[in-house]
């Protein structure tokens, strides 16, 4: 197994001595993150493109990043929020659900975007080489801006309910990154499957709906029977959402959930990258 590109040192006549070896590849390969890093400029261009295109010809533009979670917050407040014991005592339900929806929306939209990124990029995939991982990665990256906008809205909601963040807020980036890692893992895997099986396109919205109710977004994880708690924590979004909420609002730190979820998330990403790299070479033929 040889790496794609071996950059050797300079040469006598000034020409670069970049060496590209083209060979059929069998078996597992390294995850390709190094190649993504060396193409980070192009990654940035793809993020920039996705952002530009997403909000072209829209009236509200990036405001959509706020409108969606706010609308969901209102809907869940007047429906699920009226049920007894759905959220922990002492926390206003709208704040509770909004704090869950913010990382969830980041995850859901980047997963949705990433899973279609290769199919939408067919034109470039069949015409030029670049590390294919850039497409799902850029898709995920382009939703970070939306996340920050919605984070601003969350700050407003907190002020509204008279909450001030504690030092625990320093953990927030960690849970955000965990949400991104999960989205990257699942999104990268689904994007590769989508190349061959277009069913993915129809499956993802449905999957995300189920997944949301399988994660403690609109209810607290304390609602889950203790016997199922370990299984429940294998859903990476359990740790992300609970941890995110803890970092903002406080309460007991759900260490067990965070730990298991983090492991599950990283394992999923590694598996997804390995799978992606393995099938990557057939994309242009199959897409």
């Amino acid at each position, binding site marked *: 197994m040889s790496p794609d590109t071996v950059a050797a040192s300079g040469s006598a006549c000034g*020409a670069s001595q970049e*060496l590209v*070896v*083209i060979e059929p590849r069998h078996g597992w390969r390294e995850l390709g993150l190094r190649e993504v890093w060396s193409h980070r400029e192009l990654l940035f261009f793809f993020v920039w493109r996705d952002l530009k295109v997403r909000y072209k010809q829209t009236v509200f533009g990036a405001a959509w990043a706020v409108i969606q979670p706010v609308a969901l917050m209102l809907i869940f407040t007047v429906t699920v929020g009226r049920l007894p014991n759905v959220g922990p005592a002492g926390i206003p339900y709208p704040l509770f659900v909004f704090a869950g929806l913010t990382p969830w929306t980041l995850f859901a939209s980047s997963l949705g975007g990433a899973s279609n990124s290769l199919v939408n990029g067919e034109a470039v995939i069949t*015409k*030029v080489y670049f590390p294919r991982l850039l497409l799902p990665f850029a898709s995920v990256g382009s939703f970070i801006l939306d996340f920050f906008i919605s984070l601003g809205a969350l700050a407003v909601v907190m002020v509204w309910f008279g909450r001030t963040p504690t030092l625990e807020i320093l953990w927030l980036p960690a849970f955000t990154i965990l949400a991104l890692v999960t989205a990257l893992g699942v999104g990268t895997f689904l994007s590769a499957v989508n190349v061959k099986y277009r069913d993915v396109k129809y499956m993802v919205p449905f999957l995300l709906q189920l997944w949301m109710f399988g994660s403690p977004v609109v209810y607290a994880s304390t609602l889950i029977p203790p016997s199922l708690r370990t299984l429940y924590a294998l859903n990476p979004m359990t740790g992300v959402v609970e941890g995110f909420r803890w970092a903002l609002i406080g309460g007991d730190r759900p260490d067990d959930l965070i730990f298991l979820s983090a492991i599950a998330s990283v394992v999923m990403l590694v598996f997804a990258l390995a799978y992606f790299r393995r099938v990557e070479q057939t994309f242009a*033929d199959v897409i």
Partner: protein
Amino acid sequence: MNDVALSATGLAKKYRLGNVASYGRLSESLWNAITDPFGRKHTQDTASDFWALRDISFEVPRGSAVGVIGRNGAGKSTLLKILARITSPTLGRAELRGRVGSLLEVGTGFHPELTGRENVLLSGAILGMRRAEILRKFDEIVAFADIGQFIDVPVKRYSSGMKVRLGFAVAAFLEPEILLIDEVLAVGDGEFQKKCLGKMSEIGKGGRTIIFVAHSMPAILRLCDRAILLDHGKVVVDGPTAQVVRRYLESDLGRIGEWSAPDYETALGDDVAKLKSIRVLPLGGGNPEEIDIRKQIDIEVEYWCKNPGSLRPSTNVHLYNDDGVCVFINNDWNDRKNWPKAVKAGSIVKSTCHIPGNFLAEGRIILTVAVSTFNPLIAHTVERDVVAFQVVDRSEGDGVRGEFTNEWPGVVRPMLDWDVESRPWKK
């Protein structure tokens, strides 16, 4: 140091027709996906396997330009896609030494919603330019594209011509050491094409290595000193361009200049007519591969006429150009005096069609020749795409194009009579 920029050894590519032709559906192959998630079983040969390339080996020295030609489906594009790392080979190995740039279409990575300016940045980056490099060349790129204030308009509002200009402008400023190009010159208006070809030649002179896939013979002859002819996924010839182009024209579209049937028995046709020979004769002699546009061309057709009975067959020639456009069809009945007398039982009929100089356009002409009766309609013998020849415009101010040296479109290039006069004009 090694001065080989590209070497390929035993490259081969297999496609699985059944799998590639249709999108998979989970319901159909969920079981396969579970039992064989990485398609290991599928690596065995099956009946639906199709080898697009087989055992391709060649070397390209640094700084040379190599053309790849061949019929549609010969494997040219597959080869380029492997070298560009878009798809991977099934067997074999290739090594490319130097920064590789590939141009498989004009406007790679363009997004219709983005403006011209934004697309220059995006396309440049996708084609492998650094951000700083794009910004440095940005003004030059915009000037080369020559689209004026449209640079800030979304590309979806561009005409196709403008899109091509912008796309090519980006490509023209790539500075790879090895450039892989496919067909991109086959688009755009004539003048712009000329400009692009000029830019390409510059690249060639700049010590860059070029692999060029095209159908356009003039472009290949101009750009490449060496050519590789592919057929059915294999290298047929690899050598000096002129020689390979000649071989291509012969193998693919009949012989150059002449054709003849081996003997009467095996010749195709009926008792009325069997084609014997076809010859393209530039007046005063010369190579039918490069006939001066100013020269008269005679097309001489002979056929065996055993027994025409009451039918009155006529020889007809059909001239097609490189784009498959029929330039004209003509019949030997135009010789009204001799035609009825010449066609008689037990004779060899020879008809010669005179095409005047300064009439055909520059380029390749492919002949189809038939002997047929038109009432009732019977085609006694037809040889399709049987003979090819090439018309070259080397006129030096005395041709149709005068002093004009740029692209001169048109299916024909006739020297027509004009009358020019003037009369006094007062306000």
